[in-house]
């Protein structure tokens, strides 16, 4: 090979240039801290680096998401711990309330406390975190929990997103029950067709209030106030039966029957499919406006979306309610029972006979018929001939009382009514009592105390009666412990004796004598002081039982009777329709005939003829409210029953708090996992992208040395030739 000068020079140049290129590239890697600045410099590393970057970006976002979720979980946990404290408080109040006998005022105070606790619970569950109601499920629209009052202003119903909590036993049926989720890098799986997210693949950051506070009850019914429905108007209500929500619409009918039919048809149309497939009993409305479905909870609310439809009054009777029903099981055949029925502001005492029949259904139906008759007598009917106070004959709501547009309360009569009392009411949990007020003057009564029969006569005053009893009850210490006129107790030695039987003496009656024409006269002389009397006044097609209190002063008695008559029959313009004069003559203002009879008085038993719908809600806020209402009504048994349930609910709550804790652990775990992964990824990114400084600097030093050496060589690159030596 001939080595020529151009060869040497070109080679030198090329190599020098290559060294400079490498040296510069090396410098660039050091100054830019990057192994490569273009993918082409290291395609494989670049491809990997892009993946690593993506993973890092994702991880960053998921950590943010987890932090957001953590905030919600922490707040939820804090809230639930508060709730747990509050529930312990509720339990204490209930225990204190149920422990000893209190008077109604004390119960009212306890009830008030419970209601306050319920309100606090609701406010906790309406907690707002950064503009989001934590326990509102997927809704952020206002407050998830609301409380509804009954007509007397007491708390009655807890609603979650406008739906009574008792109405469904599945929390998923409530509005806004879908989960709000965040992607935390578990590989979010979203259906491409339905857009549904697989809950396993994301983190739920919503809390369903209905799930946490509980929902549903054993059963329940919904009351539609038929009286509030106007003819020809549109109504739209949401009915929840067995957790199936249907919106039904109907137009108010011309008559109540028409409306009931319309609603039933609408219900049938709405639920026919579900009835066929889900074995749901068809929800039906009875003639009282009660919607029921056998064995399941029914509730109804006005449809909030309906803008054009009228609102109507809907009451839900799931849980502890004001709904009273006849206690068929406790009734003895052919016995006469007396109950006090309050419709709105008006309280009436009615009597009825428990029917006698071998077939229990017929027996019950006949009893109901008797009660309805008595109710109609007492409260009358409206212009359309409908009873103002109903007692239901429907299989599910059988024996339930209801009234149009008013709250009905029913209880066993506390006072003997009428002028012909055959027995004394005996009631008390702690000691036996004879209601002195209910005893008539001159009548003879026999009571059985322990095994001893004691016969005594009613006195003109309660004090006189008490003295009569004391005189008759030899061997007993007769006391009037509470000082009121209703409690008399019999004590032998240290033991109180039970009054086990009341034997009824022969009956007498208040002297009502027909006077001339169609007027009747009340024998004012026969009326004793501080006694309750009832007379039946039949006027036109209305028969009413008018109750009044007797007084020693006949003018006062007359005034009482007049007051009661006015309440029962009302005014005709400015005049009372039915009047009584100073002598006891009962006349009508319009001159139409009136018939007055004295009331037959049945035997009262210690067994209660009335029972409440005692349904315990699965929601503890509702339960608290129900307990408050029970205390107000003096129903200590029910309140007692609430204690255990509150304790159970609290235990359940603790499980939920533990659940939240688990989720927080899960979040922490994921955060930690992502942080660790980040570290690994960053390490990988370093490996892939960041200059290995030691290596590069060493390399650079080498290049620099080589380059300098190369430059040093430059003076001798062009070699000496023979010309340097020839002369």
């Amino acid at each position, binding site marked *: 090979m*001939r*080595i*020529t*000068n*151009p*060869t040497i020079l*070109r*080679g030198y140049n*090329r190599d020098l240039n290559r060294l400079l290129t490498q040296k510069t590239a090396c410098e660039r890697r050091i100054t830019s801290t990057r192994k*490569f*600045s*273009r*993918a*082409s*410099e*290291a*395609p494989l590393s*670049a*491809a990997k680096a*892009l*993946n690593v*970057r993506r993973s890092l*970006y994702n991880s*960053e*976002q998921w950590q*943010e*998401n987890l932090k957001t979720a953590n905030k919600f979980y922490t707040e939820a946990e804090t809230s639930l711990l508060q709730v747990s404290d509050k529930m312990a408080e509720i339990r204490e109040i209930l225990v204190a309330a149920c422990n000893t006998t209190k008077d109604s005022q004390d119960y009212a105070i306890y009830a008030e406390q419970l209601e306050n606790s319920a309100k606090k619970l609701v406010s906790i569950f309406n907690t707002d975190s950064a503009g989001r109601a934590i326990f*509102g499920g*997927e*809704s*952020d*629209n206002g407050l998830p929990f609301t409380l509804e009052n009954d007509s007397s202003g007491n708390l009655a119903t807890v609603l979650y997103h406008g739906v009574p909590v008792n109405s469904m036993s599945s929390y998923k049926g409530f*509005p*806004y029950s*879908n989960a*709000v*989720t*965040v*992607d935390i890098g578990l590989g*979010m799986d*979203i259906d*491409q067709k339905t*857009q*549904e*997210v697989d809950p396993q693949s994301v983190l739920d950051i*919503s809390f369903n209030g209905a799930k946490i506070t509980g929902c549903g009850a054993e059963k329940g019914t919904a009351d539609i106030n038929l009286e509030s429905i106007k003819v*020809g108007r*549109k109504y*739209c209500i949401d009915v929840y039966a067995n957790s199936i929500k249907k919106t039904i*619409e109907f137009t108010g009918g011309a008559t109540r029957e028409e409306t009931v039919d319309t609603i039933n048809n609408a219900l049938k149309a709405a639920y026919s499919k579900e009835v066929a497939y889900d074995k749901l009993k068809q929800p039906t409305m009875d003639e009282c406006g009660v919607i029921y479905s056998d064995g399941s909870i029914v509730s109804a609310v006005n*449809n909030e*979306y*309906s*803008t*054009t*439809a009228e609102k109507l009054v809907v009451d839900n009777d799931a849980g502890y309610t004001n709904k009273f029903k006849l206690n068929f099981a406790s009734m003895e055949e052919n016995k006469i029972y007396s109950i006090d029925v309050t419709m709105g502001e008006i309280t009436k005492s009615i009597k009825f006979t428990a029917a006698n029949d071998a077939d229990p259904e017929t027996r019950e139906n006949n009893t109901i018929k008797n009660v309805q008759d008595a109710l109609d007598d007492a409260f009358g009917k409206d212009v359309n001939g409908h009873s103002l106070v109903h007692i239901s004959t429907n299989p599910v709501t059988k024996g339930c009382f209801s009234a149009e547009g008013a709250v009905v309360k029913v209880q066993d009569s506390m006072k003997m009514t009428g002028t012909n009392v055959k027995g004394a009411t005996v009631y008390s949990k702690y000691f036996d009592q004879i209601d002195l007020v209910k005893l008539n003057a001159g009548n003879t009564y026999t009571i059985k105390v322990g095994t001893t029969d004691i016969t005594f006569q009613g006195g003109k005053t309660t004090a006189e009666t008490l003295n009569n009893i004391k005189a008759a009850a030899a061997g007993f210490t007769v006391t009037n412990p509470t000082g009121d006129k209703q409690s008399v107790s019999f004590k032998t030695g240290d033991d109180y004796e039970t009054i086990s039987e009341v034997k009824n003496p022969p009956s007498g009656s208040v002297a009502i004598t027909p006077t001339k024409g169609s007027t009747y006269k009340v024998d004012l002389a026969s009326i004793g002081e501080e006694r309750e009397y009832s007379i039946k006044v039949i006027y036109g097609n209305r028969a009413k039982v008018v109750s009044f209190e007797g007084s020693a002063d006949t003018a006062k008695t007359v005034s009482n009777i007049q007051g009661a008559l006015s309440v029962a029959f009302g005014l005709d313009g400015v005049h009372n329709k039915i009047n009584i004069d100073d002598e006891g003559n009962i006349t009508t203002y319009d001159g139409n005939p009136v018939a007055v009879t004295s009331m037959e008085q049945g035997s009262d038993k210690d067994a209660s003829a009335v029972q409440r719908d005692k349904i315990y809600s699965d929601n503890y806020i509702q339960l608290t409210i129900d307990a408050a209402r029970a205390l107000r009504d003096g129903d200590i048994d029910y309140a007692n029953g609430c204690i255990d349930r509150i304790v159970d609910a609290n235990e359940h709550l603790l499980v939920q708090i533990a659940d939240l804790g688990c989720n927080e652990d899960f979040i922490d775990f994921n955060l930690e996992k992502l942080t660790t992964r980040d570290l690994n990824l960053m390490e990988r990114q370093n490996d892939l992208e960041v200059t290995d400084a030691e290596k590069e600097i060493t390399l650079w030093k080498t290049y620099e040395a080589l380059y300098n050496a190369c430059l040093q060589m430059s003076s001798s690159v062009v070699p000496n*030739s*023979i*010309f340097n030596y*020839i002369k």
Partner: protein
Amino acid sequence: MRPTFLGFETQRRTLMLAQKNQDIVGNNISNINTPGYTRQRVDIYSMYVSGLGEPRWSSRSNMLSMQGQGANAYGVSQIRDTYIDKRYRENVSIESETETKINVLSDIEDILDNFETTGLQRKTQDFWNALQDYSEEKPDSTEVATIAANAAVNLCRMLNDYSSQLKQVEDTYVNELKDNVEYVNKMLNEMRELNERIEKEKFHYAEEYGPNELYDEMNLYIDELGTYGEISVHQNANGTYDVTMGGVKILDGIAQKNSQIIMKEYDIYGTAELYFQNGQDVILTRGSFKAYQDMINGNGVYAAGGQNSNYGIAYFKSAINMFARTVADTLNTANGADNDSFRAMFVSATEDSLITAGNIRVSDDWLEDPTMIGKVRYFNEKTGLYEYGFDEKSDTPVTKIKYEQAYETETNADGSIKYDADGLPVPKKDANGNIVYIPGSRLRDKDNNLVPVYEKNADGSNKLDANGKPIPVYETVDGTASGTVNLQNTNVKYLFSQFDNKNIEFGYCHDFTGSYFEYISFISNRLGQTIEYETSRNETAKVTVDELLDSRDSVSGVQMDEEGINMLNYSKWYNASSRMLTTLDDMLDKLINGTGRVGL
């Protein structure tokens, strides 16, 4: 009989030869740094004078008298290895081709960079992050929704920018190619002119000799032409050169034909296409012309018409377009734009054209209502269509007043609608006396109010309520957006889940199936790998070219020592020859002046 002055003649020639050799040594040394210079040498031979003629002065018996006539030279030749030239030109064409390709691809890579600057990956990622943030909020949270929309705007802008920058790169290289074509054409003209000179000069030379310097010049041209494409070279007897490129003789001695390369009007054809003057396409397997065509027309799987399947500017333009179109199409579809064009998130800036990186933009519908994507799709069983609203569960029926359906109306002479006494339009009846209803349209009265349907009595009159007002008929329609907003921002989740869908097909030619990010990575990889491939080709070619240059130098280059030795040699030769003359002179002197003068 030997001629008396034979020796003088021989030495005269020798002196001349020595001097000429010295001249060529000088010429070689002078041209040691001249590009394209090929070392020369004097072709010397030993003189022989034939006795076959009529040498009146020669001995018949033998050739003795004519022997020893010294040396002579045929001419000055070049030392060149045509095989090395051929190989050199092959490899230099590859070197030049790959260099051009690397230039183009590097320019593209500078634009599509994901590493040093904020690239497509980051912008796409930002968009994903913004959607994630939005998905955690209520769908009606306008602020976060706006951030998401802005992230999309930024992504679009980057794509627009990519598109215009790629267009600039394309323009740059199209112009470069035009310049190169012009340059080559000029060069071919010069080469032809050179051929003419060579022919004229060659006339004065012996057959195997010619104008060496002109040959060197021609070879320089040929070497340069070799960088543009594969060529083959042939030298004619008259000294001129023929050059064939891509099977077409573009230099044919002094003939003026096919000597031009023509480029099709790029603006018209959209591809860079070259053809020879004879109409034949320029189809090359190497060289920078091929590089330009590959890079400008290379459209990978999308190649059509004059394009080829290389990964050139056209391909990366297509790839970016495909990215823009696919992202837009998949997200639009996910957002329900297939059924309702108002749901489109991305649109083309130019109407009725496919979305490309150049024209992609965020739709006005989205910009005006950033929460548009937060509205949820649900299936309305009544209409059989998917509809949209914030409230996912909007199946709550709404009771509304039912309105009368519109019908065709009678008109007055002036074309206005004729109204009856109640202010209702008078219906126009068809041949059968029936009212012609207009489906999907509601009737309006004189005051342009909608007319409710009223409940009727049996006699057809309106049923009146207690206040004497007609009772409207109500109808229940399936609820649409009820105004309440759920937190569950499912549609946005659905949208960002599209980013992880690994089954998206990019392009209509099965170029790539995967996710958005995988595609970005894919483009980056393809570009990087193409550059890497061309770089390695370039390096190989370079090394070979260097080796061949060395080999060529080894044959044709001037070697200083060699020339020095020759110089000394020729100098001594000259001295010896001069000395010979002195000796010959002495000999003649003896003969002429010393002979026959014995005793003088």
